[in-house]
Protein backbone atom coordinates (compact mmCIF):
# COMPACT_ATOMS: atom_id res chain seq x y z
CA UNK A 1 0.00 0.00 0.00
CA UNK A 2 2.88 2.35 0.81
CA UNK A 3 4.54 1.24 -2.43
CA UNK A 4 1.41 2.23 -4.39
CA UNK A 5 1.51 5.73 -2.93
CA UNK A 6 5.23 6.16 -3.70
CA UNK A 7 4.74 4.93 -7.28
CA UNK A 8 1.81 7.32 -7.72
CA UNK A 9 3.87 10.31 -6.47
CA UNK A 10 6.85 9.42 -8.69
CA UNK A 11 4.69 9.03 -11.79
CA UNK A 12 2.96 12.38 -11.12
CA UNK A 13 6.33 14.16 -10.74
CA UNK A 14 7.67 12.53 -13.90
CA UNK A 15 4.63 13.41 -16.01
CA UNK A 16 4.62 16.99 -14.68
CA UNK A 17 8.26 17.59 -15.63
CA UNK A 18 7.84 15.92 -19.04
CA UNK A 19 4.89 18.20 -19.75
CA UNK A 20 6.88 21.25 -18.58
CA UNK A 21 9.75 20.30 -20.86
CA UNK A 22 7.53 20.07 -23.92
CA UNK A 23 5.76 23.30 -22.93
CA UNK A 24 9.14 25.03 -22.77
CA UNK A 25 10.01 23.56 -26.16
CA UNK A 26 6.91 25.24 -27.57
CA UNK A 27 7.26 28.51 -25.67
CA UNK A 28 10.90 29.61 -25.61
CA UNK A 29 12.20 32.01 -28.28
CA UNK A 30 15.32 30.39 -29.82
CA UNK A 31 17.05 27.04 -30.17
CA UNK A 32 19.44 27.35 -27.19
CA UNK A 33 16.72 28.16 -24.65
CA UNK A 34 14.62 25.34 -26.13
CA UNK A 35 17.54 22.99 -25.53
CA UNK A 36 17.57 24.06 -21.87
CA UNK A 37 13.93 23.08 -21.46
CA UNK A 38 14.00 19.84 -23.43
CA UNK A 39 17.27 18.43 -22.07
CA UNK A 40 16.90 19.12 -18.36
CA UNK A 41 13.18 18.69 -17.88
CA UNK A 42 12.62 15.57 -19.99
CA UNK A 43 15.70 13.84 -18.52
CA UNK A 44 14.47 14.51 -14.99
CA UNK A 45 10.91 13.46 -15.84
CA UNK A 46 12.03 10.21 -17.47
CA UNK A 47 14.28 9.44 -14.48
CA UNK A 48 11.26 9.73 -12.20
CA UNK A 49 9.06 7.56 -14.46
CA UNK A 50 11.80 4.89 -14.36
CA UNK A 51 12.07 5.24 -10.57
CA UNK A 52 8.35 4.45 -10.39
CA UNK A 53 9.04 1.24 -12.33
CA UNK A 54 11.96 0.41 -9.99
CA UNK A 55 9.81 0.86 -6.88
CA UNK A 56 7.11 -1.36 -8.43
CA UNK A 57 9.67 -4.08 -9.19
CA UNK A 58 11.14 -3.90 -5.67
CA UNK A 59 7.72 -4.27 -4.07
CA UNK A 60 6.88 -7.24 -6.35
CA UNK A 61 10.25 -8.87 -5.56
CA UNK A 62 9.70 -8.53 -1.82
CA UNK A 63 6.19 -9.97 -2.21
CA UNK A 64 6.87 -12.91 -4.53
CA UNK A 65 10.73 -13.28 -4.53
CA UNK A 66 10.54 -14.04 -8.24
CA UNK A 67 14.03 -13.46 -9.60
CA UNK A 68 12.90 -11.90 -12.90
CA UNK A 69 12.09 -8.69 -11.01
CA UNK A 70 15.79 -8.36 -10.11
CA UNK A 71 16.45 -8.23 -13.85
CA UNK A 72 13.82 -5.51 -14.24
CA UNK A 73 15.50 -3.41 -11.53
CA UNK A 74 19.03 -3.62 -12.97
CA UNK A 75 17.95 -3.10 -16.56
CA UNK A 76 15.85 -0.06 -15.68
CA UNK A 77 18.78 1.48 -13.80
CA UNK A 78 21.06 0.86 -16.80
CA UNK A 79 18.46 2.50 -19.06
CA UNK A 80 18.35 5.54 -16.75
CA UNK A 81 22.15 5.94 -16.91
CA UNK A 82 22.18 5.55 -20.71
CA UNK A 83 19.43 8.17 -20.99
CA UNK A 84 21.16 10.73 -18.73
CA UNK A 85 24.58 10.45 -20.39
CA UNK A 86 23.31 10.39 -23.98
CA UNK A 87 20.94 13.33 -23.42
CA UNK A 88 23.70 15.56 -22.06
CA UNK A 89 26.15 14.66 -24.85
CA UNK A 90 23.47 14.96 -27.54
CA UNK A 91 22.36 18.43 -26.41
CA UNK A 92 26.01 19.52 -26.38
CA UNK A 93 26.39 18.30 -29.99
CA UNK A 94 23.21 20.05 -31.15
CA UNK A 95 24.20 23.36 -29.52
CA UNK A 96 27.68 23.26 -31.09
CA UNK A 97 26.28 22.37 -34.52
CA UNK A 98 23.64 25.12 -34.32
CA UNK A 99 26.30 27.71 -33.53
CA UNK A 100 28.57 26.45 -36.32
CA UNK A 101 25.73 26.55 -38.85
CA UNK A 102 25.51 30.29 -38.25
CA UNK A 103 22.42 30.51 -36.08
CA UNK A 104 23.09 33.11 -33.40
CA UNK A 105 21.13 33.21 -30.13
CA UNK A 106 18.32 35.66 -30.79
CA UNK A 107 17.56 37.54 -27.57
CA UNK A 108 21.14 37.81 -26.26
CA UNK A 109 23.08 40.15 -23.99
CA UNK A 110 26.60 38.83 -24.61
CA UNK A 111 28.10 36.29 -27.04
CA UNK A 112 31.72 35.45 -26.20
CA UNK A 113 31.82 32.53 -28.63
CA UNK A 114 31.28 34.73 -31.70
CA UNK A 115 33.86 37.18 -30.32
CA UNK A 116 36.38 34.36 -29.88
CA UNK A 117 35.73 33.29 -33.49
CA UNK A 118 36.20 29.53 -33.10
Amino acid at each position, binding site marked *: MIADTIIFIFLIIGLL*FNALGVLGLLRFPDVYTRL*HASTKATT*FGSIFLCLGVVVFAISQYLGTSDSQYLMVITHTIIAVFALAITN*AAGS*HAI*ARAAHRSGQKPDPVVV*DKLTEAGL
Partner: protein
Amino acid sequence: MIPFIVTAFVAFLFYLVLVVGSGSVLFWSWEEIIAGVIIGLVTGVIARKIFCRSENYRMLHPVRLISILIYICGPFLVELTKANLDVAYRVITGNVRPGIIRLHSGMKSDLALTMLAHSITLTPGTLSVDVDGKNHDLFIHVIHLDEGVEKKEAFEAGEIFSYMNIPAWIRRIAE
Protein backbone atom coordinates in the same frame (compact mmCIF):
# COMPACT_ATOMS: atom_id res chain seq x y z
CA MET B 1 48.51 -7.79 -21.69
CA ILE B 2 47.15 -5.45 -18.99
CA PRO B 3 44.65 -3.75 -21.38
CA PHE B 4 43.32 -7.19 -22.36
CA ILE B 5 42.80 -8.28 -18.73
CA VAL B 6 41.13 -5.00 -17.73
CA THR B 7 38.76 -4.99 -20.73
CA ALA B 8 37.83 -8.65 -20.33
CA PHE B 9 37.13 -8.23 -16.61
CA VAL B 10 34.96 -5.13 -17.11
CA ALA B 11 33.00 -6.85 -19.91
CA PHE B 12 32.50 -9.94 -17.71
CA LEU B 13 31.18 -7.82 -14.82
CA PHE B 14 28.83 -5.92 -17.14
CA TYR B 15 27.46 -9.19 -18.54
CA LEU B 16 26.85 -10.45 -15.01
CA VAL B 17 24.91 -7.27 -14.20
CA LEU B 18 22.79 -7.76 -17.33
CA VAL B 19 21.82 -11.38 -16.58
CA VAL B 20 21.25 -11.07 -12.82
CA GLY B 21 18.48 -13.29 -11.48
CA SER B 22 18.97 -16.24 -13.86
CA GLY B 23 19.84 -19.06 -11.45
CA SER B 24 20.89 -20.31 -8.05
CA VAL B 25 24.64 -19.60 -7.66
CA LEU B 26 24.08 -16.37 -5.69
CA PHE B 27 21.99 -14.77 -8.46
CA TRP B 28 23.42 -16.47 -11.56
CA SER B 29 23.31 -19.89 -13.19
CA TRP B 30 26.49 -21.75 -14.23
CA GLU B 31 25.63 -21.51 -17.92
CA GLU B 32 25.43 -17.73 -17.80
CA ILE B 33 28.74 -17.47 -15.91
CA ILE B 34 30.53 -19.62 -18.51
CA ALA B 35 28.94 -17.63 -21.34
CA GLY B 36 30.07 -14.42 -19.58
CA VAL B 37 33.68 -15.65 -19.39
CA ILE B 38 33.69 -16.49 -23.12
CA ILE B 39 32.08 -13.18 -24.10
CA GLY B 40 34.51 -11.29 -21.85
CA LEU B 41 37.54 -12.94 -23.49
CA VAL B 42 36.25 -12.20 -27.01
CA THR B 43 35.48 -8.58 -26.08
CA GLY B 44 38.92 -8.21 -24.54
CA VAL B 45 40.60 -9.35 -27.75
CA ILE B 46 38.51 -7.04 -29.94
CA ALA B 47 38.22 -3.86 -27.86
CA ARG B 48 41.43 -3.64 -25.81
CA LYS B 49 42.96 -0.84 -27.86
CA ILE B 50 39.77 1.27 -27.78
CA PHE B 51 38.90 0.77 -24.12
CA CYS B 52 42.40 1.44 -22.71
CA ARG B 53 43.50 4.06 -25.22
CA SER B 54 45.29 6.38 -22.79
CA GLU B 55 47.32 3.58 -21.06
CA ASN B 56 46.44 5.20 -17.75
CA TYR B 57 44.73 3.08 -15.09
CA ARG B 58 44.07 5.62 -12.35
CA MET B 59 40.28 5.20 -12.74
CA LEU B 60 40.56 1.58 -11.51
CA HIS B 61 41.33 2.79 -7.99
CA PRO B 62 38.38 1.71 -5.79
CA VAL B 63 38.24 5.05 -3.95
CA ARG B 64 37.60 6.83 -7.25
CA LEU B 65 34.88 4.34 -8.28
CA ILE B 66 33.07 4.69 -4.96
CA SER B 67 33.35 8.47 -5.02
CA ILE B 68 31.70 8.52 -8.47
CA LEU B 69 28.66 6.78 -6.95
CA ILE B 70 28.61 9.17 -3.98
CA TYR B 71 28.92 12.13 -6.35
CA ILE B 72 25.98 10.99 -8.50
CA CYS B 73 23.70 10.25 -5.55
CA GLY B 74 24.62 13.35 -3.53
CA PRO B 75 25.71 16.72 -4.96
CA PHE B 76 24.72 15.95 -8.55
CA LEU B 77 21.15 14.98 -7.61
CA VAL B 78 20.75 18.16 -5.54
CA GLU B 79 21.90 20.34 -8.45
CA LEU B 80 19.72 18.40 -10.92
CA THR B 81 16.60 18.94 -8.79
CA LYS B 82 17.39 22.64 -8.41
CA ALA B 83 17.96 22.92 -12.18
CA ASN B 84 14.53 21.51 -12.91
CA LEU B 85 12.75 23.81 -10.46
CA ASP B 86 14.62 26.69 -12.13
CA VAL B 87 13.58 25.56 -15.63
CA ALA B 88 9.97 25.12 -14.46
CA TYR B 89 9.99 28.71 -13.16
CA ARG B 90 11.43 30.03 -16.44
CA VAL B 91 8.90 28.06 -18.53
CA ILE B 92 5.93 29.38 -16.58
CA THR B 93 7.00 33.04 -16.33
CA GLY B 94 8.97 33.37 -19.58
CA ASN B 95 11.57 35.51 -17.78
CA VAL B 96 14.83 34.90 -19.72
CA ARG B 97 17.94 37.02 -20.38
CA PRO B 98 20.32 34.64 -22.21
CA GLY B 99 23.98 34.98 -23.15
CA ILE B 100 27.09 32.94 -23.95
CA ILE B 101 30.01 33.34 -21.51
CA ARG B 102 33.54 31.99 -21.27
CA LEU B 103 34.50 29.77 -18.34
CA HIS B 104 38.02 28.90 -17.16
CA SER B 105 37.58 25.22 -16.31
CA GLY B 106 41.03 24.61 -14.83
CA MET B 107 40.78 20.88 -15.64
CA LYS B 108 43.83 19.09 -17.05
CA SER B 109 42.62 15.71 -18.31
CA ASP B 110 39.99 15.10 -21.00
CA LEU B 111 37.87 12.86 -18.76
CA ALA B 112 37.55 15.58 -16.12
CA LEU B 113 36.61 18.14 -18.79
CA THR B 114 33.92 15.77 -20.13
CA MET B 115 32.47 15.22 -16.67
CA LEU B 116 32.45 18.97 -16.01
CA ALA B 117 30.68 19.69 -19.31
CA HIS B 118 28.01 17.05 -18.60
CA SER B 119 27.51 18.36 -15.08
CA ILE B 120 27.16 21.90 -16.43
CA THR B 121 24.56 20.78 -18.95
CA LEU B 122 22.40 19.12 -16.31
CA THR B 123 22.71 21.85 -13.65
CA PRO B 124 20.77 25.12 -13.21
CA GLY B 125 20.44 27.49 -16.12
CA THR B 126 23.61 26.53 -18.00
CA LEU B 127 24.37 24.55 -21.18
CA SER B 128 27.86 23.91 -22.55
CA VAL B 129 28.11 24.91 -26.24
CA ASP B 130 31.75 24.63 -27.32
CA VAL B 131 35.24 24.00 -26.00
CA ASP B 132 38.49 25.82 -26.66
CA GLY B 133 40.91 22.98 -27.25
CA LYS B 134 44.11 24.92 -26.48
CA ASN B 135 43.56 26.00 -22.87
CA HIS B 136 40.47 23.88 -21.97
CA ASP B 137 38.07 26.80 -21.71
CA LEU B 138 34.36 26.10 -22.03
CA PHE B 139 31.75 28.31 -23.70
CA ILE B 140 28.49 28.20 -21.78
CA HIS B 141 24.99 29.36 -22.68
CA VAL B 142 23.34 30.83 -19.58
CA ILE B 143 19.58 31.27 -19.60
CA HIS B 144 19.42 34.18 -17.16
CA LEU B 145 22.38 36.54 -16.63
CA ASP B 146 22.09 39.13 -13.87
CA GLU B 147 22.39 42.83 -14.71
CA GLY B 148 25.98 43.92 -15.29
CA VAL B 149 27.52 40.43 -15.15
CA GLU B 150 27.98 40.31 -18.93
CA LYS B 151 30.84 42.84 -18.73
CA LYS B 152 33.16 40.21 -17.17
CA GLU B 153 35.76 38.69 -19.48
CA ALA B 154 35.72 35.14 -18.06
CA PHE B 155 34.23 33.20 -15.18
CA GLU B 156 35.84 30.74 -12.79
CA ALA B 157 34.48 27.18 -12.58
CA GLY B 158 33.25 27.52 -9.00
CA GLU B 159 31.10 30.61 -9.59
CA ILE B 160 28.23 29.06 -11.55
CA PHE B 161 27.37 26.30 -9.07
CA SER B 162 25.63 27.76 -6.07
CA TYR B 163 25.20 25.06 -3.39
CA MET B 164 27.71 22.29 -4.00
CA ASN B 165 31.38 22.59 -4.96
CA ILE B 166 31.12 20.48 -8.13
CA PRO B 167 34.58 21.29 -9.64
CA ALA B 168 36.34 20.15 -6.46
CA TRP B 169 34.43 16.84 -6.58
CA ILE B 170 35.35 16.29 -10.22
CA ARG B 171 38.98 17.11 -9.53
CA ARG B 172 38.98 14.59 -6.68
CA ILE B 173 37.44 11.88 -8.89
CA ALA B 174 39.16 12.25 -12.24
CA GLU B 175 42.57 13.89 -11.74
